[in-house]
């Protein structure tokens, strides 16, 4: 039975500030950023925390890393209250923030690694072992001694994540780590994080806008909007629950007859192929398949879940659910 790594209980954050509304007048404003959210993440889990801008995910992460004090509720990370025991917790958590790099720009990554060893009081021998392991797994040898500003974004992010793991944290927070990366670099990074999660039991807490990140890195997704949790479920379940639809792609041997069926939308049509979106709540997939097989000899058929972007867009668009 795994331990709880991160636990939130009715965590609340209200921003309280005054805004100048005229020449001399100031108006008092209150913004509810996080509205009493509760969740539990077990050690070794990989969780994707997604939501539109202003939804409250950055605020939540800031509270979990001890940077921000909440207005109400409780939260613990590895049994410690982040904003009260920030110093101690720092040894056990790592973070990769999109906007700011830990790596010194004009120096090679190795120099930053050595500095981090000092910051985290890692004994020399242990540091060397750990660093070599990370360099090997993250494939950093080629540019370990190249100044960071000369690296590609993909290389930089790999070094960045490696740096955040140097001190053997148990929980890793990643804030939009794949932004700006090309397809290959993105996949490489996802694989590395996933591998570390699976083989080392690293608890991963990732925020992202990229559907691919969510599908390839986490099994569990938490959707937050307007400061509230809108969905907390397995990625596969989310897809199934929120849009009961499947994408059907069929290739025919001869031009098929036309198809008209309730709950079936034709997305694309060429001479020999059809791409359909099936609302399985209206038309069960077997009946659609039967219908399709009648149209013409089938050369190839595939059934897929719709892209996650669509699912997420669908969820964002939903009204705030009052618990």
């Amino acid at each position, binding site marked *: 039975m795994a331990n709880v790594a991160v636990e939130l209980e009715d965590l609340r*954050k209200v*921003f*309280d*500030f005054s*805004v100048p509304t005229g020449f001399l007048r100031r108006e008092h404003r209150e*913004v509810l*950023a996080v509205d009493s959210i509760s969740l539990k993440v077990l050690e070794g889990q990989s969780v994707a925390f997604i939501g539109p*801008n*202003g939804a409250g995910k*950055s*605020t939540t992460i*800031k509270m979990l*890393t*001890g*940077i*921000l*004090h909440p207005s109400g509720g409780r939260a613990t990370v590895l049994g410690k209250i982040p*904003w009260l025991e*920030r*110093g*101690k917790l*720092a*040894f056990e*958590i790592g*973070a990769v*923030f999109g906007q*700011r790099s*830990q790596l*010194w*720009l*004009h*120096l090679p990554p190795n*120099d930053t690694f*050595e*500095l981090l060893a*000092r*910051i*985290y*009081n890692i004994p020399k021998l242990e540091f060397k072992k750990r660093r070599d392991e990370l360099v090997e797994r993250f494939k950093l040898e080629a540019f370990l001694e190249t*100044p960071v500003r000369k690296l590609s974004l993909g290389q930089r992010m790999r070094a960045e994540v490696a740096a955040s793991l140097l001190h053997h944290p148990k929980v890793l927070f990643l804030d939009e780590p794949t932004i700006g990366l090309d397809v290959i670099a993105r996949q490489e990074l996802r694989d590395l994080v996933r591998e570390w999660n699976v083989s080392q039991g690293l608890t991963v807490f990732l925020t992202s806008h990229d559907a691919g990140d969510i599908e390839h890195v986490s099994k569990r997704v938490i959707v937050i909007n307007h400061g509230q949790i809108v969905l907390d479920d397995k990625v596969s379940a989310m897809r199934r629950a929120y849009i009961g639809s499947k994408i059907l792609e069929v290739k025919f041997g001869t031009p098929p007859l036309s198809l008209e069926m309730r709950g079936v939308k034709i997305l694309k049509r060429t001479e020999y192929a059809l791409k359909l979106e099936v609302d399985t709540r209206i038309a069960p997939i077997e009946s659609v398949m039967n219908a399709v097989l009648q149209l013409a000899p089938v050369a190839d058929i595939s059934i897929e879940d719709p892209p996650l972007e669509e699912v997420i867009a669908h969820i964002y668009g939903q009204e705030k659910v009052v618990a």
Partner: protein
Amino acid sequence: MISRFQNYASLAASYFRLNLSAMLEYRAAFWSQVLAMFFNNVIWVLFWSIFFSRFKIVNGWTANDVLTVWAVGSAGIGLSGAFFGNAGQLPRLITQGQLDVWMLYPRSLLSHFVLGRSSASASGDVLFGYIAFFALVQPNLERSLLFVLFTVSIMILFTAFRIMAGSFAFFLGSASNLATALEFALISLSTYPSALFEGAAKFITFTLLPAAFIGALPVEAIRDINLEKTVLVLFGTLVFAALSVIVFYAGLKRYESGNLLEMRS
């Protein structure tokens, strides 16, 4: 306690090495800034030495005093900029939310973030201060020890002052120009004889703008090998340092409440 100090000292040394490394990537720029500051200090010292030898002021300073005050002041302030250079960036770090990154580390925030930067011209200041003092003033052993001691105390005091001035940004928002103006005011005040300031002005140089602990007192302590003035400088420095810590962490509470700016998403 000693080992904590050693640990911190080795961390500071690592940071300095890294900062230096990063600056030396642009060798020409680095050296031009070092030399420019060196040259700058030489000009000022020459100017004021000539001034004070031409125009005698009652209880004023001799050329030697002028040299000493510029040497100890620039060396001390230079040490602050060389080791704790990030203290001067505090207003910007606050308003841009850059303190967040430093807060993730397992170190006390204040003592850590200040190590994050070093200034090339500050190194020029240190070089000038030490060379000028030992080459031109040619002090005996006691004066030399006092000099070194004061460069360290000034380093601490100036860093603490920068932190206090920078902490205005926790409460006022964009305050970097205010902090800079106060810094320049402090430095300016430090280079003049204490005889110039009486009453309220003198009080200010011991409190709000602690120029007395950077200029007048160290100079007089070195010149007369005066123990009381030395103790006074150390005491004042410690008080200021303690105050800066208090002010900083009080301001940090505001930062942590997130109510400083509009929501940073």
